[in-house]
């Protein structure tokens, strides 16, 4: 927090929404949130029904990317202030886990000997086959994208 009362995030990337998105929730605001949530759920359901490698599936992921990319660059919401610095020891635990995960994935990809050394994608793919599961996964992906835009 700076002496002028602003956070680093506010100085670096000032939000340009007309008002903070994290203010008190009024009924109209809650209704809007419910409407947006329902819209995203329907969108996820529709995209989950498209065939892999189809034009519809590609468009289904391009649209959210384009929308969130535009919002992030042109009209970013008020950002959640990031930490000034990270604890090296605390962060090292994450680095170890991520390095182990990607090393494991790289070795499976290099061996390329399905089904003996399945990659993470090989394992996740069958789990995403039920329509409901895939819809939920797409919804989580969309919400994660919005969460990232706010960071």
């Amino acid at each position, binding site marked *: 927090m700076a002496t002028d009362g602003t956070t*680093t*995030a506010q100085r*670096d990337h000032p939000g340009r929404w007309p008002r903070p998105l994290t203010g008190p929730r009024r009924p109209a605001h809650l209704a809007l949130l419910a409407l947006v949530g329902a819209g995203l759920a329907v969108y996820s359901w529709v*995209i*989950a029904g498209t065939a*892999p*490698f189809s034009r519809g*599936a*590609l468009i*289904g*992921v391009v649209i*959210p*990317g384009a929308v*969130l*990319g535009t919002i*992030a660059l042109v009209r970013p919401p008020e*950002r*959640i*202030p*990031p*930490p000034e*610095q*990270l*604890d090296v*020891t*605390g*962060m090292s*635990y*994450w680095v170890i*886990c*991520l390095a*182990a*995960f990607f090393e*494991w*994935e790289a070795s*499976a990809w290099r061996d390329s000997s399905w*089904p*003996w*050394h*399945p990659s*993470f*994608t090989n*394992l*996740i*793919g069958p789990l*995403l086959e039920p329509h409901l599961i*895939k819809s939920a*996964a*797409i919804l989580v*992906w969309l919400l*994660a*994208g919005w*969460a*990232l*835009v706010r*960071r």
Partner: protein
Amino acid sequence: MPPIPTRTITIIGFAVAVVAMVVLEILARRPGSRIPTVGEWLGYLMRPKLGRVLVLVGWWWLGWHYFAR
């Protein structure tokens, strides 16, 4: 005792890595923890514009990889 198939070993390896990350996130959310949450370290990486772009591209790639292919 029969040998453990390499497929099982591979799956166990992924499971260990994923569970470890879930545990880290839970530990990070305890008051006074020195471990950053995923949101905190991603936010830190996204402070420069290049980091912001790379993280968002990574997010989009995940969607394309798992939902469009």
